[in-house]
């Protein structure tokens, strides 16, 4: 609702702040993105469809979105556990662990990619252990999931952490007094309260995974049709001066990401219906 009354808020009014928001989003987000669409509009409809549905491109969508969803799922489970431990337990080195969680935010993605590739390659520290069991991570699609998990972890931990802090121990005690066992307390009391924040964390982690480039190209092996991600394909097109093709693929990615995030947001709102 548009506010009519004056001087009923401490902060500057609705008008100036909305104006600023629209201007700011336009400069930072909307204008660059619409330039992208304009560039792609240079193609005819047929050319556009051909470009974005080429088999190699389709395979890359599958690798990118599939890996990002799997990585976000992994993060949603383990990120919640990490957040739970950090909030609920006091142990020596807790602050250090807490700081470690943010490291994937700060580390240059190329560094992360090279490090992961080194450790998980068949002669790396961890790869050496896995190799005899027939598990190869570096230079396979598994490597993509690993890199996406690495860079997405802080998103889940940092969105879930404050929500766990708000869940009073008394809620668990109340559930136990009422006869609930441990599993019932978790499923009926804790999970529903955490769910909205877990979904937000999932969405952020997923979005980050879809957009990731730097760390993945070092560990993925980048085999066309198998372990080639869409962002890499776009770069390849750019290097071949196929600007229109690159922007066409980018448009598809943009649309797919936006609609998935929209769905996740609606889902998140539904799980929080009790707070309204």
């Amino acid at each position, binding site marked *: 609702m548009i506010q009519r009354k004056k001087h009923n808020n401490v902060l500057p009014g609705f008008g100036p702040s909305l104006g600023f928001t629209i201007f700011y989003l336009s400069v930072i987000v909307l204008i660059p993105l619409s330039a992208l669409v304009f560039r792609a509009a240079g193609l005819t409809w047929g050319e556009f469809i051909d470009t974005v549905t080429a088999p190699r491109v389709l395979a890359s969508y599958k690798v990118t979105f599939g890996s990002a969803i799997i990585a976000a799922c992994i993060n949603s489970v383990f990120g919640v556990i990490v957040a739970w431990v950090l909030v609920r337990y006091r142990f020596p080195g807790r602050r250090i662990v807490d700081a470690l969680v943010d490291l994937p935010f700060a580390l240059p993605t190329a560094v992360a990619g090279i490090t992961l590739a080194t450790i998980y390659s068949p002669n790396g520290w961890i790869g050496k252990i896995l190799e005899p069991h027939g598990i190869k991570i570096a230079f396979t699609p598994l490597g993509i999931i690993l890199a996406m998990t690495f860079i997405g972890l802080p998103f889940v931990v940092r969105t879930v952490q404050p929500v766990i802090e708000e869940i*009073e121990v*008394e*809620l668990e*005690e*109340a*559930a*136990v*007094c*009422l*006869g*609930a*066992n441990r599993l*019932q307390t978790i499923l*009926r*009391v804790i999970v*529903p*309260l955490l769910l909205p924040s877990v979904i937000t964390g999932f969405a952020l982690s997923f979005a980050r995974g879809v957009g990731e480039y730097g760390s993945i190209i070092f560990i993925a092996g980048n085999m066309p049709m198998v372990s080639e991600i869409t962002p890499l394909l776009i770069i390849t097109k750019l290097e071949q001066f196929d600007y229109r093709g690159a922007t066409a693929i980018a448009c598809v990615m943009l649309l797919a990401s936006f609609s998935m995030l929209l769905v996740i947001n609606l889902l998140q709102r539904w799980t929080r219906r*009790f*707070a309204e």
Partner: protein
Amino acid sequence: MSIEIEHVHKQFGTFAALNDVSLTIPSGELVALLGPSGSGKTTLLRIIAGLESSDGGRILFNGTDTTESHVRERKVGFVFQHYALFRHMTVFENVAFGLRVRPRATRPSNSEIKAKVTELLRLVQLEVLAERYPAQLSGGQRQRIALARALAVEPQVLLLDEPFGALDAQVRAELRRWLRKLHDEIHITSVFVTHDQEEALEVADRIVVMNKGKIEQSGTPDQVYEHPANPFVLNFLGDVNLFHGRILQANGHVDTGENAVSYVRSHDIEIERTPLDSTALQAVVKHIQKLGPSVRVTLDIAGNNDFVEAELTRDVFHNLGLQHGERVYVRPRQVRVFVEDYQI
């Protein structure tokens, strides 16, 4: 169901939260654990519930030792100070929770659950709010829902931890009258923790006064108010004035000449214009404070520079027509004298 607490001890690091506490709560009584913060009253309540384990001693429910049994098996209803309602569930689902988590064999059918919950919501007079979420309720309503939720599992004992502590004064007064009425209807053995003496005096059948991990006195509200066992209980149950003195005439229990302290409740102090007898003390009116139905007068006992507070009804105050700085006579109506915690 009766509760027996035998020599319970609880230690938090170097701090003894409960020190050899023994207490018997007869079946069907509403008992108040009264004491200042840090007196161990909440710890005792949580040990009865099984939410906290004791370091020594036993808890018996109806003569059966429950010390080792899990919270889930004790069948206690627990009401928390800050309600602890499940905010993602409607009022109905909150109350139904205890029934829904039962093992399949003993779980009531959906229609039975509906009937039970509706009955409980009627008991707490909140049927119309069944489909609301806790966030949409007032504090008093939330606490009533919390109570209905605790009663849904048909507990043998109801334990309330400062149930009205987070509510404003008017709602608090209303709810405690309601709790008393509810208890008269369902007669469940109930223990509630409070630091508000007025609340304990109004609601409880029996008051257990606690201090520093020990029970100072246990008795009916009249007993603890009229016959406090020691200066702590006297002090805690109402405003008192202290007069330091010396025993002039011994009565066998104490020696003449020993130091003693006499305690007079502020509403037991009478103010007069002319001294009736030799027990009246001369004083100067220092301060007058009107507190709704009563008036608090601060007096300076002449020569002693000891301040004494008297509480008068508005009528008495108006009849006297006291003025600031006026010289008057003060006479204690009822004096309790303690020599080192021993009352004469």
